[in-house]
C-alpha cells in the first residue's frame, strides 16, 4: 500500500517538487552549523549592508551579519515552530475528533458546537491577543498557534470516525470487550491517519506563515534569534538601500509554505481513494 502511495506522489510532479523543497529545507536546518560560513549572530559593523557577492552570498544586514548564515539558522526556527505547533494541534484535534465521533450524542454535539464557536473568531485575532498579553517568545508562538489551529482537524477526524465506527471490525472489537483506549488507538486512529497527515502537512506551512505575520507585528521570535519572519521585518526598514534583506527571507517563506502546500495537496490526492478510482 505504501508503495502505491509513494508512486502516486512521485508521478505527481507538483507534489514531488514540494517534497524536494521540504527535503532541502530539512537538510539546511539539520546541517546549518556545518554549512553556514559565518556566525548567524556575529556582528561585523565594517561589513554592514553589503550586497550579495562572493564573500557574503546573500549580502549582510545592518549589523554586518551574514544573511545566508542567518537564513540557514532561521530554517531551524521556522521548521521547529511549524512542527511543534502542528504537533499540538494534531494532538488536540485528533483526540477531540475521535471522542466526538465515537461517543456521538450529547458529547458529540457539545464538542462540535465548541469547534463551531472557536471557528467564529478570526484565528489571527486569538493568536494576537494571547501573544500580546503573554511575553512574545518562540515557545509562546508555537503553543498559541498550536492551541488555535485544531478545530478544522477535529472536524475531519470526527467525520472519518463516524464512518468507521459502524464497521464490523469495530463492532466485533466492542463485542469481545476490547477496552475503549485500545479501540481508539488500534482501530480508529490508523483509519483516520490520512486526513491527519494531509492537514498536518498543510498546517506546517500555515504555522510558518503565521509566525512571519506575528514577527512583522513585533510579536514573534525575538532577536537575536534569527527567524525568517523577523529578518523580513528588519529588512523592510532598509528596503530602499538593501533589497536583499527582505527579498531572500520573503522568497524562503514563500517557497517553504508553497512546498508544504503542494505536498499536502499531493498527499490528499494520493491518500484519497475516491479521486483515484
Amino acid at each position, binding site marked *: 500500500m505504501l508503495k502505491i502511495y509513494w508512486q502516486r506522489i512521485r508521478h505527481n510532479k507538483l507534489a514531488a517538487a514540494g517534497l524536494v523543497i521540504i527535503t532541502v529545507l530539512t537538510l539546511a536546518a539539520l546541517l546549518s552549523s556545518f554549512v553556514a560560513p559565518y556566525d548567524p549572530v556575529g556582528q561585523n559593523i565594517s561589513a554592514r549592508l553589503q550586497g550579495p557577492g562572493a564573500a557574503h552570498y546573500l549580502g549582510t544586514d545592518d549589523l554586518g551579519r551574514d544573511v545566508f548564515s542567518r537564513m540557514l539558522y532561521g530554517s531551524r526556527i521556522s521548521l521547529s515552530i511549524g512542527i511543534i505547533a502542528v504537533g499540538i494541534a494534531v494532538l488536540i484535534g485528533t483526540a477531540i475528533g475521535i471522542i466526538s465521533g465515537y461517543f456521538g450524542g450529547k458529547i458529540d454535539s457539545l464538542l462540535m458546537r465548541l469547534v463551531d464557536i472557536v471557528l467564529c*473568531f*478570526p484565528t489571527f485575532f486569538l493568536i494576537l491577543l494571547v501573544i*500580546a498579553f503573554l511575553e512574545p517568545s518562540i515557545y509562546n508562538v508555537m503553543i498559541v498557534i498550536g492551541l488555535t489551529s485544531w478545530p478544522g482537524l477535529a472536524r475531519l477526524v470526527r467525520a472519518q470516525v463516524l464512518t468507521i465506527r459502524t464497521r464490523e471490525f469495530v463492532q466485533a472489537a466492542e463485542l469481545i470487550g476490547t477496552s475503549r483506549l485500545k479501540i481508539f488507538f488500534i482501530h480508529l486512529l490508523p483509519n483516520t491517519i490520512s486526513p491527519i497527515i494531509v492537514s498536518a502537512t498543510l498546517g506546517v506551512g500555515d504555522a510558518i506563515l503565521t509566525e512571519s505575520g506575528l514577527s512583522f507585528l513585533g510579536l514573534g521570535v525575538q532577536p537575536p534569534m534569527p527567524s525568517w*519572519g523577523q529578518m523580513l521585518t528588519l529588512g523592510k526598514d532598509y528596503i530602499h538601500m538593501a533589497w536583499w534583506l*527582505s527579498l531572500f527571507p520573503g522568497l524562503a517563506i514563500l517557497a517553504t509554505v508553497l512546498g508544504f502546500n503542494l505536498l499536502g*495537496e499531493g498527499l490528499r490526492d494520493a491518500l484519497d481513494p475516491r479521486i483515484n478510482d
Partner: protein
Amino acid sequence: MANYLIKRLLYTIPMLIGITLITFAIMHIVPGKPTDFMSDMNARVSADSKIKLARLYGLDKPWYEQYWNWLKRFGKLDFGNSFKDGRPSIKKIAERLPASLLLNILSLTFIFCAAVPIGIYSAVRRNSLFDKAMTVFVFAGFSVPAFWLALLLMILFGLKLGLLPISGLHSLDYSDMGFFSRVLDTSKHLILPVVISAFTGLAGLSRYARSSMLDVLKQDYIKTAYSLGLPENKIIFYYAAKNALLPIITILGLSLPALIGGGFIFETIFAYPGMGRLGYEAVMARDYPVVMAVGSIAALLTLLGNLIADLTYAWADPRIRYRNR
C-alpha cells in the same frame, strides 16, 4: 423551509452563548485587570482606591454575576469605553466597519469571479498544463506573506511608478473633491489592498470549486449526458457546474473570519482605516474594551455570515431542507 429556518435559528442561540462565554473568559484569563491600567500608571493611587475602582467595574462580584452583567451589556452592544480616549468602543467600531466591509466584499467578489472559472476549467482539463499552472498560482498566493507582497507592490506601483497611492482610503484633499473624483480617488486607494487580499485568498475557493467539480464530473448523470452526445459546453456549464457550485455558498460564509483576520496585518501596513487595524492597535495598547468589542463583533459577523450562507444553501438545494425536517 420554515422548519429548517426555525431549527437553524435555534442553533445560533448556543453559539451566541459560547461566543459571550469565550470573550468573557479571555478578559479574565489575560494577566492584569482592566483597572491596573488606570491605577498602575498613577503612583498616588492607594490600595484603598484600587478596591474602589474594582468595585466600580464590578470586579469584586462572583464570576457568574459578572458574566450576567457582561451578557446584558453584550445584548446592548455596550462594550465599555476605550481606555485610550474614553469614547464608546462600539462607536469606534461603527466608524471603522464600513471601510472593512467595503474591502472584504470587494475582495470576496474578486475571489469568486476568479476562483470559479479557475476551479471549473482545472477540473475539466485535469492534469493539463493550465491545471498545474493554476495550482501553483493559487498556492503561491496562499503561501506568500501578505505584508511582504504588499510592501513590494507598494514600492513598485507607489514609489517607482508613482501610479497608485500607498496608504489610507482617501487623499488629503478628499473633502474638496466632486463625486466622481471621490469615487476615482477611493478606487485608486483600494486597488492594491483588494488585489493582494484577493490573490492571497484565492486558494481555498478555487481548490474547493475544482474538487467539487471533479466529484460531479464522475456522476452517472454526467456520463449519461456525454453518452447522449450533448455538447460539452452544455454539459459542463448547465449540468455539472450548477451542482458543483452549490456548496460554494457555504464556503463563502466560512471564509469570512479569515478575511477579517487577514485584515489585522493588512490594514496596518496600508494604514487602512478598518476594523483590523483598530483591533491591532487596541491589542498593542491593551485597550481591553476595544479589543473585546472587535473580537465580539468579528465573531458575530461570522455567525451571521454562516447563517445567511446556510439559509441560502437550503433555499437553493432542496435536499438540505428535506433531510432536516
